[in-house]
């Protein structure tokens, strides 16, 4: 008998399976669940993006692209970064990845060595931590606070920096809180970083999904920050293209060229059909994005009011498609809350602790669902809270 535990990499075996696996296993057994758990758009990819993918197949464009991706797509990305953020990136400092996910993986792997520190504001998306650990790095978490609208503050950042800090993950607009960093907040962060050699992984995958007038600002726009920033972005969220698996990175040449080296060996090139489709997404879909955003915005307002009305304090998120109500007033842990809600009302939401220890006491509710679906869920959550009080 082979003892596989001796064969497996220690780093891999040591990775903790996601803490809420148990909850999801439970949820999978309950029938006819009203789920509010999904982190991808409910919209379909806009038709003319799909059409561009189909056309490329009809024309037989089924080969690999250049390692860095189709030139015309990189050109469109470069134009987008210019028109949207006034950022000048040469096409050679941009490349196309398999989702924002690969872009995150490459950024961390290109920078983190054994024993290096990576700063990670939490709660946040679940992939940064394990990737850093695989690279041999230490994850230094920085809990963001409700009273700061879940933003990273300069003091918190300053206090977390050590001589071993190499990378700061800046995951805004944030999954799961919906927090955004405005220009003035980014200025403060930049002030702390400018005197250092710390790089920033700016995960801007929700850049186009912000609400309430102010659009997302990239930290690379702030004085002295472009040379310290690796921008990670992608097509999954804004263009409803999760299944196409396409993202990109832009950053300083010396780093991008090293990341491209890993990409070249590990991936070769990103999916070709998706790249043809994404070229159209970048050049010709502002209106579709705006329309989807309006729908998200209506749902967001509805949910924030509904949770506050039900007595669960709910921060007004300004980005992404999640609300993050606080459930501490129920006296339950977030996992207990989710399990009870699931069993008594068949509504599934995600325990906040899944996104880092400081997410405890909150739950993540996705609004990538129709208003009707959300209204039914809200009705049931309301009943659940009433029953808890008894």
């Amino acid at each position, binding site marked *: 008998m082979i003892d596989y535990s001796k064969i497996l990499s220690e780093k891999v075996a040591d990775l903790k399976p996601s803490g809420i696996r148990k909850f999801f296993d439970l949820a999978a057994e309950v029938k006819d669940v009203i789920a509010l758990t*999904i982190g991808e758009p409910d919209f379909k990819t806009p038709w003319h993006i799909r059409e561009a993918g189909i056309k490329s197949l009809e024309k037989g464009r089924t080969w690999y692209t250049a390692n860095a991706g189709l030139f015309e797509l990189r050109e469109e990305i470069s134009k987008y970064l210019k028109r949207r953020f006034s950022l000048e990136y040469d096409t050679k400092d941009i490349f196309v990845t398999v989702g924002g996910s690969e872009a995150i993986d490459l950024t961390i792997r290109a920078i983190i060595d054994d024993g290096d520190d990576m700063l990670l504001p939490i709660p946040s998306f679940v992939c940064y931590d394990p990737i850093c650990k695989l690279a041999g790095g230490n994850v230094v978490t920085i809990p963001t606070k409700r009273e700061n609208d879940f933003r990273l503050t300069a003091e918190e950042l300053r206090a977390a920096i050590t001589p071993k800090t190499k990378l700061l993950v800046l995951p805004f607009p944030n999954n799961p809180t919906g927090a955004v960093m405005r220009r003035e907040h980014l200025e403060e962060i930049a002030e702390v970083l400018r005197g250092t050699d710390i790089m920033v992984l700016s995960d801007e995958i929700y850049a186009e999904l912000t609400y309430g007038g102010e659009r997302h600002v990239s930290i690379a726009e702030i004085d002295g920050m472009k040379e310290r920033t690796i921008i990670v972005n992608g097509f999954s969220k804004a263009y409803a293209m999760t299944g196409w698996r396409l993202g990109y990175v832009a950053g300083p040449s010396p780093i991008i060229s090293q990341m491209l080296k890993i990409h070249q060996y590990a991936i070769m090139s990103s999916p070709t059909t998706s790249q043809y489709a994404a070229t159209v997404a970048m050049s010709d879909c502002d209106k579709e994005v705006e329309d989807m955003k309006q729908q998200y915005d*209506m749902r967001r307002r509805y949910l924030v009011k509904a949770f506050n009305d039900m007595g669960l304090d709910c921060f007004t998120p300004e980005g992404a498609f999640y609300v993050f109500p606080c459930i501490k007033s129920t006296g339950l842990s977030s996992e207990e809350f989710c399990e009870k809600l699931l069993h008594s009302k068949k509504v599934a939401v995600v325990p906040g602790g899944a996104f880092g220890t400081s997410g405890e006491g909150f739950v993540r509710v996705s609004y990538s669902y129709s208003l009707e679906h959300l209204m039914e869920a809200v009705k049931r959550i309301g009943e659940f809270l009433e029953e808890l009080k008894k």
Partner: protein
Amino acid sequence: MDQLLKLLEQNAKLSTEQLSAILGKSEEEIRKAVEEYERTNVIVGYNALVNWEKINPNDCTAVIELKVQPKRDHGYDELAAEIMRLDEVQTVWLMSSSSYDLSVIVRGHSFRDISMFVAKRLATLESVTSTATNFVLKRYKEHFFPFEEIEKDERRHLNID
């Protein structure tokens, strides 16, 4: 307030309170806007989309094409006004078609019911020169609503991305 109309067009049951939350406007603003739309006939009415076939399996719908010879004092509008008054009539449209002029949608309890209605009440109208009755065999979708759910949410339900 285009969004308000779109929301109501899809679901007239939304309360002022819900609309206020969804649109980020005060309830007062919503109430005023709706009243204004009703007053100016931008919102013409509210109704439920009923699947009558579930109650009475023989119930049916027909789309009737009317050819019309308009007269000096009795044009399309006058004729349409007469047809609109009939309770069985659900819809009346003036069409730009080379083969007929008015399209009338009628509901009845049976094919025969409707045929008799056309023969007695529509074909006999002055200036109607001919009628053609098209029976609806199956209603798939009306006013944005499918009669049977065709699309399931195929996304994975449980994940933390």
